[in-house]
């Protein structure tokens, strides 16, 4: 909100004084309300909030829905959220009485801004490369993503190597640039083509398992042919050092998912399955693996069975996220398609907000409308998953990027 203000021609001293006075007045008003849902700064009653929004309904992001929610934002963060909150008279509030709000979308699987490729593919084991090192924080593709409501992106190395590298997480700014908030994120693995390929170890899922299990023990599992690419000690050391924590595993088929969970889970890592575009064959078997799932690339051209996969997984208790995956895909369209094919409303918003944030291990920073989290908020004229819903207000890091009363 501050950055959105036009530069004032008035002298700085006058501006400061006016601001102080108006803040004091606001503070008095706030103090008069006992429930104080908008008591923006309990620690600093002299200071009022940057932005207060009242909406008809709020999807918090974790599956709960608040009616008549009053959301207070200050210094780029949510300060308070209250159901049926009252706002004291005189406090400037943006009211969207019939509108539906949700957190800014989190797209967990992208390669946005990774120009020049996201796969260091001469080797199968590149656990030590980092997607963040290739990320252009001013990339031209960020602005359209922001315009589509995505405020946090996961940057993953491409699925071209069995041990692909480290993910990164970036949040978008109101000006269309991005800031990396997690530079060395979860390790990313790929147990599907093109990581399984004909000119390099391995060419099978079984080989990928053997290679990873050997590497976790610090062994090379090399080709024995002369001239085989030497395996870097650093790569083996990086893999041998992985003993716990989250991991992301690109898989397509159910069997690849099984091997990913057995191999990475067997090591003590907590894998999230990413992709799963051939897993529609047996959602029950995927659910039985007990791993969170990110279904990627859903589009209008996909089969009914694939579009129903998020619903089938959610029905069996799997924490499902959606991600755009491929460039040019719309996360909101993926959400619309998944809901149209049975994804329950209670799982819909979490699938594009809190759950992907948890997958990226940044759920304490983004993905919900909750105090102290980054203030990324979308207000729609209807449900976020309805293609007909229009964006009425978009707040990114506490700043308004779009407002259509």
């Amino acid at each position, binding site marked *: 909100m501050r950055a959105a203000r036009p530069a004032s021609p008035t002298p700085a001293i006058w501006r400061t004084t006016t601001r102080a006075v108006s803040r004091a007045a606001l503070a008095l008003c706030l103090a008069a309300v006992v429930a104080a849902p908008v008591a923006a700064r309990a620690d600093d009653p002299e200071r009022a909030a940057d932005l207060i929004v009242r909406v008809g309904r709020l999807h918090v992001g974790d599956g709960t829905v608040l009616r008549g929610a009053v959301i207070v934002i200050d210094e780029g963060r949510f300060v308070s959220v209250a159901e049926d909150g009252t706002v004291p008279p005189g406090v400037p509030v943006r009211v969207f009485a019939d509108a539906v709000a949700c957190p800014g979308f989190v797209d967990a699987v992208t390669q946005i801004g990774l120009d020049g490729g996201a796969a260091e593919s001469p080797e199968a084991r590149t656990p030590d490369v980092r997607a963040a090192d290739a990320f252009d924080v001013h990339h031209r593709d960020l602005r359209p993503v922001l315009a589509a409501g995505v405020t946090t992106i996961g940057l993953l190395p491409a699925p071209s190597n069995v041990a692909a590298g480290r993910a990164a997480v970036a949040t978008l700014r109101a000006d269309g640039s991005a800031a990396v908030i997690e530079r060395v994120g979860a390790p990313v693995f790929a147990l599907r*083509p093109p990581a*399984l390929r*004909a*000119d*390099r*170890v*391995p*060419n*099978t*899922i*079984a*080989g990928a*398992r*053997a290679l990873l299990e*050997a590497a976790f023990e610090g*062994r*090379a*599992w*090399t*080709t*024995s*042919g*002369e*001239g*085989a*690419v030497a395996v870097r000690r650093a790569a083996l050391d990086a893999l041998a050092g992985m003993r716990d924590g989250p991991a992301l595993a690109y898989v397509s*088929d*159910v*069997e*690849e998912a099984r*091997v990913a969970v057995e191999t990475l889970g067997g090591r003590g890592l907590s894998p999230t399955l990413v992709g799963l575009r051939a897993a529609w*064959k*047996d959602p*029950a*078997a995927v659910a039985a693996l007990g791993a969170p799932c990110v279904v990627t690339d859903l589009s209008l051209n996909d089969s009914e069975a694939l579009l129903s996969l998020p619903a089938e997984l959610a029905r069996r208790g799997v924490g499902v996220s959606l991600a755009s995956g491929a460039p040019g895909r719309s996360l909101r369209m993926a959400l619309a398609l998944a809901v149209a094919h049975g994804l329950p409303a209670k799982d819909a918003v979490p699938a594009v907000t809190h759950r992907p944030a948890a997958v990226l291990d940044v759920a304490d920073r983004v993905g919900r409308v909750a105090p102290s989290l980054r203030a990324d908020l979308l207000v729609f004229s209807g449900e976020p998953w309805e293609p007909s819903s229009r964006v009425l207000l978009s707040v990114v890091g506490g700043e308004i990027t779009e407002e259509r009363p």
Partner: protein
Amino acid sequence: MRRRLAALACGVVVAALVSTALVRADDGRDDLVFVDVTVLDGLGGAPRKGTVSVRGGKLALATGKGRRVGVPGAFLAPGFVEAAGRTVYLRADAEMTREMTADIDAADLVDPRHSDFREGAFEGCTTVVVPPSARNVVGGLTASYHAWSPEGRAVPIAGAPKALAAAFGQSPSRGNFPPRYGATTSIYARRPTTRMGVVWMLRQAFLAAKGLQPAPDDADLRHYREVLEGKRTLRFQARAIQDLNGALRLADEVGVQFIAEGVDEGYRVRDALGARRTPALVGPLSDIRTGRGPDGTDTALRNAAMLRDAGCVVALTAGDSGPRWLREQAMFATRYGFTREQALAAVTSIPADLCGLTARGRIADGAAADVVLWSGHPLLPSSRMLMVVIDGRVIFDRTGEGTDGGK
């Protein structure tokens, strides 16, 4: 007090009954009684009329409780056991980036939802054992499956032993070339490039496992050691005479027993194979018109019968044709030296025994409930499948159509 005790006892009985019912429901298995069917035991015995019941996934040669299945003129036979199902892979069929992959488990190469499993089950094949393909000198370990389930996939057989599968002949060397330019450019840039290279690599591996020469690279030798200690079965796919002779020589050199697979020219070395009582998984009998087989072999229609007569234990396989063609292989055998009962045993109890699945492939008290009801003798082309039961669960049921196909 007495009344209370009685009530308690009643409660216990009811609870026990309820829990039994729940266990059976969870189990998902069916109770069936095949009434007055012609029973083929799969062990070579003559057909006989009888009643066979299925309960809790086991067979009993007596009547029992459950759904009664009686179709006039029907035959009940054990489900076929495909000992070398080589078509049901998900993607690549071998980890070809190495030549010796003893630590590769076929379970991670198989697609349990592969349609060939289902089609095999439809043609009476209830068990499929899958080796890694013969593109590697040592492909890895076999995996055994119930061919299909109501969940729409093949199910791994718990506790089934895993054989180490290796290959002689041209399959592991075909297309390979020496690595060039200091970098691997293809999975074919590898050893071996010739037939002799295949034997040479196998010999090195076993000698390394015995500690008689250094181990190549970081190869994991424990599976070879288990073979040498007699704790793991070894399979050699060998088709041509020189490969069979090579397998015999190597086995003698390093001191191992093996099951021969393929064995297309086995008739030419049948005395040597028979003298060792070498088990043979014979087939598939491919081109019966020209007599030309894979690996440049000259096939003989009576090959399986000649091997059996020489003393080999002979099972039949449809190999890379797919499990649904196993029935046809047994039919061929009845033309060339096998009785129907012998041919049936060669696709049921014998391959089951060779794969260490000793309770399968037969109709006997306590055997696994993998049975198929046929409208006539299963090895007659006119017979149709009426019901397939795998692991005590009905997979296909066409008994409503009767033996005449509902006409």
